[in-house]
């Protein structure tokens, strides 16, 4: 297991550098820089004026970000800065270190993503089990109909629908802003509902498939009932394939929150990310992208370790073989 983790961390380091190089290259390839965008209009002074800093500071900025240095020096200063947590200053908000910007916004995005995944997994397992127990009954059919509906409707439509019903019509929940846990409810639901759709269908089929396994016949032969068969045996074994599906969902969600954040006016990282990209705010682009990539890679590692907890064959063989 230790070897497995060490190997995975090795891969993560390689991926991290690949991501950083690609991001840096794409960022540079995009026409115009933060400074140039303003420079083209009226020179350093105009640029300085437009972002409200003195020409001296502007020149200092140019020097600080090595904008006049060769690309590898620039690249390395970003990566090294990230690795040593000396994130540097945003160009858009020159008085705020990017670290502070990220520290303020990342927890919001992260908690929305994690909460919605957790909610989706819990609800999907419950719905899947219920539908599987009553396979081919009206309960099964209606649960799966709702689930299909959930899958078919994208998160932003769900968001509008929820905002309309619970915010505008019923006045139960706030629709915009962020001043406490109540403001989380609708964004989390909007992200969770489409996931619940696909995951619960998956869970149902997975449990039904497990129930057709021969070891379930043995459970019945021992005097067990459907309850024992599902709760003691089929459920755990159905979670193994579920983990496979949830993993990519988590990664996707880290980015999926961007849209929902802007719809509900949440001060999350999505907004920071989007403006950074459009304003060519190099330090902010680099730092937020690198942070996302690290978080996603850590999540994937966590998911892979989960396999071992669920499946003794993977755990006991030291994660050596594939799933």
């Amino acid at each position: 297991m230790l070897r497995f983790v060490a190997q995975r961390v090795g891969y993560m380091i390689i991926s991290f550098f690949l991501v950083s190089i690609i991001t840096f290259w794409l960022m540079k390839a995009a026409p115009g820089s933060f400074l140039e965008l303003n420079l083209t209009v009226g020179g350093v002074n105009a640029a300085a004026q437009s972002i409200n800093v003195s020409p001296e500071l502007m020149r200092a900025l140019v020097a600080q970000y090595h904008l006049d240095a060769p690309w590898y020096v620039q690249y390395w200063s970003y990566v090294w800065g990230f690795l040593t947590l000396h994130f540097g200053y945003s160009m858009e908000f020159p008085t705020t270190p990017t670290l502070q910007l990220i520290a303020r916004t990342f927890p919001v995005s992260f908690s929305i993503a994690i909460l919605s995944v957790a909610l989706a997994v819990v609800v999907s397992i419950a719905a899947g089990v219920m539908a599987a127990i009553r396979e081919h009954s009206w309960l099964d059919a209606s649960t799966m109909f709702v689930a299909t509906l959930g899958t078919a409707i994208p998160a932003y439509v769900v968001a509008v629908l929820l905002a309309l019903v619970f915010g505008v019509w019923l006045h139960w929940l706030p629709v915009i802003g962020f001043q406490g846990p109540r403001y989380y409810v609708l964004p989390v639901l909007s992200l969770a509902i489409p996931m619940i759709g696909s995951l619960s269908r998956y869970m149902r089929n997975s449990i039904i498939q497990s129930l057709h396994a021969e070891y379930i016949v043995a459970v019945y032969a021992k005097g067990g009932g459907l309850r024992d068969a599902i709760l003691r045996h089929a459920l755990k074994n159905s979670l193994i394939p579920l983990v496979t599906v949830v993993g990519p969902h988590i990664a996707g969600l880290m980015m999926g929150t961007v849209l929902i954040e802007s719809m509900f006016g949440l001060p999350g990282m999505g907004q920071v990310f989007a403006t950074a990209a459009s304003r060519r705010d190099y330090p902010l682009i680099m730092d937020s992208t690198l942070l996302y990539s690290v978080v996603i890679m850590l999540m994937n590692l966590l998911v892979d370790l989960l396999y071992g907890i669920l499946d003794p064959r993977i755990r006991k063989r030291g994660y050596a073989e594939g799933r």
Partner: protein
Amino acid sequence: MAPLLNISDLKVTFHADRTVVHAVNGVDLCVDAGRAVAIVGESGSGKSTVMMAVMRLLGRRAHVSGRIEWDGQDLLALPERAMRQIRGRAMGMIFQNPSSYLNPTKTIGEQMIEPVLFHRIASASAARRQAVQLLEQVGIPDPEQRLRLYPFELSGGQLQRVMIAMALMTRPKLLIADEPTTALDVTVQAEVLVLLKRLQRELGMALVFITHDLAVAAQVAEEIYVMYGGFILEHLPAAELTQRKAHPYLRGLLGSIPRLDGPRTPLPFIPGQPLDTARGLPEGCVFADRCAHRMSRCAQRPPMIHVGSGHRAACWLAEEEVTQVWP
């Protein structure tokens, strides 16, 4: 004394889309307490289906009729709740492929104590102690440590021993063994057979042994039922297997066992295909199509004809057998 298990006129059909499979077509079978009985037949003869019907494990797609009397009550009339009281307690079952009949993600111990837990016989820790004892009894060394292992960490032969021990956790009156040695190596096969036979005698429980192997059946059982196409063609004491068999099918089966000694001859076999039970049943004898002794009378289905003490056969030839011994 009333028999422990008395099956009469058991019929099982499976309905799928438009076809109806006549898996079992009126089987009478009787098991006395403490007795070992074998059901022998080719694959598809309905031998496993009969015992799955006894356990009521066939699922919703199966239509079961007839009477299955267990300790004086009709199992087919019992509500599911009452059936669960019997299943896995008074009646245990072991299966052909132990590695697929054990959950790969649960330890041997967790699975072994389940019969006791399901029937609320004892606490988990008491069950665990019993499991250790039983594993020792079935010849698994270092049982306490084995309980913590997962099925993939044991060999096929060891897993089958675990399955046997698991079925014995509740001290059943009847153990149903569905081809328990078919998936094992030949040497391991013999060990498991000897073990089963020994346990059956020691514990005084009845055993129904399902197999396609006549030699194995003769070794383990005192009585043999021969099944074909969902019918019982012959029922005889195991001791008579080599001397008096009445049905041409059984003679054919015995003839097709290869011999290691003696001159090499082409392997005799029964020509033709086994009865396809999905295609509807013939009017007359089910074996007639493949029978070397077929006669005009075979267009009528023969009843079970008394041949000798504890020996009956569903063949018109058996009528003559009573008076004149087979060549």
